[in-house]
């Protein structure tokens, strides 16, 4: 249920650097499961999830990028109106703060998979496991990376 996310700093006014980062990964034949770009006026942060995160981190670091790893949690969301609400209710009830979230590109069994960045992922998992109100379905890395049957 926990994934290691890579974050990569993208400077302002450097339109090529997003491409450069992706190219480093493409050249090494690294498959991305999902990615998202947080952009501000001053800079961008590219966040991505890949099975080969250790190799990717090493290559990006060697290519001169500032790279960080963060643990994030993936949850299954019903692909229907209001699908997120049950989850967000459970988070609010347990006083769990969401820093940011984004979705995986491919659904699993017709459901969306959403990535959550919590301050403390272990604590969030524990609280949600105990009291998720029946709405919480964690998604393991194996399911996303295809190493485990859906």
């Amino acid at each position, binding site marked *: 249920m926990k994934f290691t*996310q890579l974050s990569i*700093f993208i*400077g302002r006014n*450097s339109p090529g650097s997003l491409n450069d980062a992706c190219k480093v990964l493409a050249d090494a034949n690294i498959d991305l499961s999902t990615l998202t770009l947080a952009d501000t006026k001053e800079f961008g*942060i590219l*966040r991505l999830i890949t099975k080969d995160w250790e190799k990717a981190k090493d290559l990006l*670091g060697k290519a001169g990028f500032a*790279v*960080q790893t963060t643990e994030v949690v993936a949850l299954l969301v019903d692909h229907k109106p209001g699908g997120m609400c049950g989850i967000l209710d459970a988070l609010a009830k347990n006083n769990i703060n969401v820093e*940011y979230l984004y979705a995986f590109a491919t659904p699993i069994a017709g459901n969306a998979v959403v990535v959550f960045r919590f301050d403390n992922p272990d604590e969030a998992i524990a609280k949600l496991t105990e009291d998720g109100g029946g709405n919480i379905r964690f998604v393991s890395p194996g399911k996303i990376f295809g190493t485990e049957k859906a």
Partner: protein
Amino acid sequence: MSSTIKGVPAPGYNPISASDYIPQEKMREIQLERFIRVVKNAYENVPLYRQRFDEAHFDVNSFKSLEDVKKLPFTKKVDLRDTYPYGLFARPLKDIVRLHASSGTTGKPIVVAYTQADLDVWQQTMCRSLAAVGMCKEDIVQNSYGYGLFTGGLGAHAGAEGLGAAVIPASGGNTARQIMLMRDFGVTAITCTPSYFIHLIDEAGKMGVDLRSLPIRRGVFGAEPWSEGMRRYIEESAGIKAYDIYGLSEITGPGVACECEYQNGLHVFEDHYYPEIIDPDTLEVLPDGEEGELVLTTLSKEAIPMIRYRTRDITSIMTEKCPCGRTIRRISRIGRRSDDMFIIRGVNVFPSQIETAILNAEKTLPNYQIVLTRAKGLDNMEVQIELTPEMFSDKVSAMEELTAKFAKAIERIINIRTSVRLMPPNSIPRSEGKAKRVVDKRELDK
């Protein structure tokens, strides 16, 4: 002293340093005798000096005491440019054995020349510099100043070699090889610019080499102003003692003045380089202890005598006796050059102030650059700071807080609000010589 140095006792007295201990009165006599000689050399052999002295009604034969120095006209960098290439030479080219030139950022470079005797004096004062920080013939010295037209490389090389140390002429660049040399050759001392050494610390970290675990224990850094904060950072991250050395090509090159083991002011080798401090506005000579522009006269230079050369470096002559026992006077560390200073919205700012602010905010010194622009008649200053992996967070809020923290630290020191921009690693050009901290685009933007 605060920081750790790998435990090797400092070597004892080196006879090369004898002149560092000449009693003050005797030193004044030597200076006067040499001053008279150099002024005559200038007047008799250099048309520009002859013209200037005549205009100032200065009679070379009337020079009787060091008080008379005040009557001499100043020499400036522009004089070297205007007489490019050989106009200030007091010796014919057959007596010249070396030429150096400074990188001319604007227009023509300036050319400096040396007779064999000039090179000998330069080497001697460079040896005395290195001896003052405790270096000796047992040392293995990596000289990472650039070799070439820049005086740093050959100057430091001659000094270390003269001391009998084993010199590795690494020159600048090829950082990975520099770190390999440092490790494999058991380097005990390094000479380079402080900004290049910071770069070496960063790169060593990336290569997984902890400089603190290597035999290196001393660094002699010069050719650009650097702060006490930068010294602490270097000493802590590399486990060495970092010493400041001062010099300029116009006078000779590195080795005009250097710190001793006490790291409190730089001893000027005043039997060869005569220091004065002036008020840069009124041009009055200031008493010892007062801060102003450093003016230097070469007391023994044959090829290009420099009379009262305005260095643009701001410092003061220290009056207290140095506990090391040297009697030659010290100047305080040069934190700023009047050349480096820039004025933004009416406030005088020195790059060293920005450096201090960055160190205050993050306790580390990433590569940085100050970019000045002008839009609609209003000056803007942007401080670009390269992100280190340690500073980087996946959270936008954390990055914005970091930006604000830098901006606040800078505002606290210079009292004006500036914008701070975080930059990707290695995106600001690095110099292997002197760091270029300020990019002033205001003229272009106008």
